């Protein structure tokens, strides 16, 4: 029995030293040994092969529905006025009768049924559908059994992902997080000085680099000259908690968020020892002025790191950008927009918080193929004269959506959980009534007194 334990212990030591030597240390120095690149290249080739096989299989059975990323029904893009105008064209109009016609209801009816079949908002809170299967069971929708070879490759994939990659990644994540806690606590003991800041940055970046390796993340940064500077606010679209790791691999940020308990709380408390982050108590979050004041104070101090904020307030599925909450844009200071776009072929990064809790989400991340994403740094923006915060927020949102190739929606991400406000319906009623009663009012004023 003793022999077995000894062997196990030795194996464990070997395993740990391989991991540390080949992955952790190079990661800390920002050096890539090229493993991930080779892995991604091989993966791409395999997925291409799989795609061809599936397409060939589909051609043989033409009744299979193919996925369309643009939605499943054709939608007329006309405005309410155009559509109703078209409806009425064939109907002899009697203007003196007030501009209402029985066929107007068709427009609302059709819109309603279209929304029942497919709507713009609900689909943003579920994972994006792939055009072709990427050999993960979780993204399998309507992909039929094609061939033995494909099944074997899939089975091999399952084995590799669950038995080889996952333990490796969990080890790396554990190492990364413990390093963060220990490192920041140690740095926190030093007196405030330039050396302390430099060390703190080092600890943070190395930790995030290890975590990124822990997800097999390949990140491409574009336009690094626009990287956020101290005293500014970095604003990005939100897809998952991993966004933080992605961004922090290339720069140091001050995080903003609620104070949590448990493991998160430990991490938060130790992080704040080495450099200032902005953590709010739950009760403070409700007071918008207090929140704004703390953020203002932070950016006023030019030695502090740029703040990282996700103005959508919730995770969206990376096909679109939803309404930016204006709070972050009222603080002042320079806004550095960043667009993050994940490649869904290698793993779906979206956190569907209704379906998965944090732990199951992280496990799913660690059993995907890899995380591949592009990060674009956009040129800094500031509030222009006479512009209000809402307009500014929309401007930044459009820039990010444009760069990342995402759909720019004005829906509030909070609708995930809340009901639609009455005001939306009123707007529709207002638009319609201006078409009907608008002419009536004119009549009343022009007609005989």
């Amino acid at each position: 029995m003793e022999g077995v334990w000894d062997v196990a212990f030795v194996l464990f030591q070997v395993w740990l030293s391989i991991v540390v030597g080949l992955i952790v240390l190079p990661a800390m120095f920002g050096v890539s040994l090229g493993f991930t690149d080779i892995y991604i290249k091989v993966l791409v080739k395999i997925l291409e092969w799989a795609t061809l096989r599936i397409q060939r299989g589909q051609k043989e059975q033409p009744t299979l529905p193919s996925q369309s990323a643009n939605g499943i029904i054709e939608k007329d893009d006309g405005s309410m006025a155009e559509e109703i105008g078209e409806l009425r064209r064939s109907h002899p109009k009697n203007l003196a009768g007030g501009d209402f016609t029985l066929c107007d209801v068709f427009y609302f009816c059709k819109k309603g049924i279209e929304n029942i079949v497919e709507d713009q908002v609900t689909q943003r809170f579920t994972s994006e559908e792939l055009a072709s299967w990427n050999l993960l069971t979780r993204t399998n929708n309507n992909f039929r059994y094609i061939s033995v070879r494909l099944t074997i490759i899939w089975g091999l994939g399952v084995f590799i992902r669950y038995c080889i990659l996952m333990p490796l990644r969990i080890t790396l994540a554990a190492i990364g997080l413990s390093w963060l806690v220990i490192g920041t606590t140690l740095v926190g003991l030093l007196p405030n000085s330039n050396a302390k800041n430099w060390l703190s940055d080092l600890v943070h970046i190395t930790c995030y680099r290890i975590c990124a390796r822990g997800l097999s993340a390949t990140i491409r940064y574009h336009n690094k000259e626009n990287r956020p500077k101290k005293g500014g606010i970095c604003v990005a679209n939100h897809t998952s908690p991993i966004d933080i790791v992605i961004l922090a691999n290339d720069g140091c940020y001050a995080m903003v968020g609620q104070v949590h308990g448990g493991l998160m709380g430990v991490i938060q408390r130790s992080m704040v020892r080495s450099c200032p982050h902005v953590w709010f108590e739950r009760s403070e979050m409700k007071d918008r002025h207090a929140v704004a004041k703390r953020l203002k104070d932070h950016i006023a101090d030019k030695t502090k790191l740029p703040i990282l904020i996700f103005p959508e307030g919730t995770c969206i599925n990376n096909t679109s950008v939803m309404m930016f909450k204006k709070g972050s844009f009222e603080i002042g200071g320079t806004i550095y927009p960043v667009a993050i776009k994940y490649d869904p072929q290698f793993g779906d990064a979206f956190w569907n918080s209704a379906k998965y809790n944090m732990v199951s989400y992280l496990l799913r991340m660690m059993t995907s193929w890899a995380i591949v994403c592009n990060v674009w740094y956009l040129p800094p923006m500031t509030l222009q004269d006479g512009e209000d915060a809402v307009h500014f927020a929309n401007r930044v949102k459009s820039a990010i959506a444009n760069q990342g190739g995402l759909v720019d929606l004005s829906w509030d991400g909070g609708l995930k959980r809340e009901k639609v406000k009455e005001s939306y319906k009123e707007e529709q009623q207002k638009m319609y009534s201006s078409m009907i009663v608008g002419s009536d009012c004119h009549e009343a004023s022009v007609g005989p007194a």
Partner: protein
Amino acid sequence: MGSTSSTLLKIPNVEELMQETGFSSAHIIRLYDRFKALDKEGRGHLCPHDFGAIKELAMNPIGDRIIGAFFSPGQETVDFNNFVKILAHFRPVDKDRPRDPNSPEPINSRSNKLKFAFQLYDQDKDGKISRDELLKVLRDMLGMQVTEEQLESIADRTIQEADLDRDDAISFEEFRKSLEKVNIDHKMSIRFLR
């Protein structure tokens, strides 16, 4: 690995459904996925609350009426087959299908589309749109943006135009006649992309 035929098997009487509604198997599967997505609690049927969760429908002035059209009088739930049968009203008209005089009129015929729209007005299902019913619809579509007098004058004029037999209500025939020139197929049809 899932397969389309296994999805089709989950649906009871799917062959009959396809015959009756004219949807292809691909479209049925699409609608089945949508049905499941709306049925968040996985009960196998939808209730008005599930439709209410669709944000864009909630802001539609006649959203509640449209939702009501899915539920038979007195029923609080709708299953998948009935869900599809209602949506079948909005399938584009099949121009090339030969009209078999013995088979019942297809769900998506011009006449049935008009009947669907008529139902949205005629809530008590007595076959006529009364002045009151018209006022209710107008109030739904215009909200608080117009006064009671404006609503009444619009309703009066509409009835005047369409009501041919002077019974102060619009029957289905009068409704149909009034809209005979409108391109119903285009305006009351939804086309699937694939």
